[in-house]
């Protein structure tokens, strides 16, 4: 077919203009949340992320569930298996993006708690729960690459090795969330992991009354302010976000109302959680809020 050269001359720049508009318009928050529920592994093949043009926002780099569990374990907290979320419930959470993300975080915290307590069989089961939740978030390849399951089995009695394996999965999931423009999923998952860790710490402290566990618990509660800020930076991403933000804000307010914390804030002093005391009433208020938030997440 013969094509007029003048037509060609116009068509090529027009295609370029269209491409420019398409590429600029593909970044909206709404589009992101719609995409994320149906993300597939074919999307994950891409190694690159495109550039956002907003240069005024402050971002938040949240710690991993593994590190929270590590700090908690160092305080001497014991292992109470009945506190873990039911590992068979993964299908129940495959209803929407928020449920998938928050329970991915909860299972990550349970896995980390098992790992640092050398409960390797339980660790394996919770790794499987994470893998199932991860699959629903498009993270299959993070759990399937480098023979992860086989390496985990082979090194199951070696704490350092299994922690390295799980850390490597964590890095892969972080990269995938970034590549898929699902940064908000990372923040929701972290909030799930943080809530689960808080719940475990509160219950373990109620049982043992170990002062060091209380110190570690207060240290984790201090994170609530950053969690709120991180959630607010993605508040339009999922319909459940306003309720979640309000629940974590409530915990943050209760933490700041602890007499010793309030005094340290007023004097602008560094908080020494090992020297601080907290009344039973103050602790009960926080404990009830954390339990209620966790219940809303896992049901």
């Amino acid at each position, binding site marked *: 077919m013969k094509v007029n*050269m*003048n037509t*060609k*001359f116009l068509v*090529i*720049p027009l*295609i*370029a*203009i269209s*491409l*420019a508009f398409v*590429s*600029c318009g593909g970044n909206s928050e709404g589009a992101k949340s719609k995409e994320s529920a149906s993300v597939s592994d074919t999307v994950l093949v891409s*190694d*690159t*992320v*495109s*550039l*956002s*043009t907003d*240069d*005024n*926002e*402050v*971002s*938040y*780099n*949240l*710690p*991993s569930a*593994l*590190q929270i569990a*590590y*700090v908690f374990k*160092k305080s001497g907290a014991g292992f109470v298996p009945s506190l873990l979320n039911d590992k068979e419930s993964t299908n129940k959470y495959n209803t929407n993006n928020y449920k998938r993300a928050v329970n991915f975080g909860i299972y990550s915290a349970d896995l980390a708690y098992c790992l640092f307590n050398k409960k390797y069989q339980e660790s394996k089961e919770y790794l499987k729960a994470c893998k199932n939740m991860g699959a629903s978030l498009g993270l299959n390849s993070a759990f399937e690459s480098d023979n992860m399951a086989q390496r985990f089995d082979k090194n199951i009695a070696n704490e350092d090795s299994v*922690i*390295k394996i799980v*850390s*490597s999965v*964590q*890095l892969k999931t*972080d*990269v995938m969330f*970034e*590549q898929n423009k699902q940064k908000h999923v990372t923040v929701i998952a972290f909030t799930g992991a943080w809530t689960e860790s808080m719940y475990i710490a509160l219950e373990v402290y109620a049982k043992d009354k170990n002062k060091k566990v209380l110190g570690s618990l207060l*240290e984790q509660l*201090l*994170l609530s302010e*950053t969690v709120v*800020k991180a959630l607010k930076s993605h508040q339009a991403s999922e319909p459940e976000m306003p309720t979640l933000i309000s629940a974590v804000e409530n915990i943050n307010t209760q933490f700041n109302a602890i007499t010793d914390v309030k005094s340290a804030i007023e004097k602008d002093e*560094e908080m020494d959680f090992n020297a601080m005391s907290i009344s039973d009433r103050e602790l009960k208020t926080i404990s009830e809020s954390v339990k209620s938030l966790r219940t809303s997440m896992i049901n």
Partner: protein
Amino acid sequence: MTKIIKPIVSIVIVFVLMAFQGGDVLCNSKELKEKAKMALEPYKYDSSELTRILYKAKETVKEVEVPLFIGEKYRIVFELEALPKQVEVQIYNKDKDSKNRKLLFSSKDMGDKKEFQFEVSKVRHVYVDYAIPQTETGSYSGCAVFMVGYK
């Protein structure tokens, strides 16, 4: 002769249009983080952050808040090789709106070094600031990565 010139002009227009797409530059997050991970050893991987940097006509600052646990030792590794123009990395103990914040680290004396690290302990927060220099020639962009590890 016109038959040759017209397609060439078209191709040039395509490239010019692509260059003005609002700084939509692609960053290889996986590759950058894999490099940072190597420099993190023997610290355990905790978290990482990719920050998109857009150079503008005025100097700008992008800040990342990094909460830490006070009893732990940390290493923070920076990978800046995906930046077309060097930015200064500054680490503070308080955020950019605080009056008496203390500078804990600056990459100013490191010249054009694209990978470096910072170790810190006994703090509950650090604030990573990327001081992005102004540019006079259009808008261009890149990305910076840092990775946090604990011992």
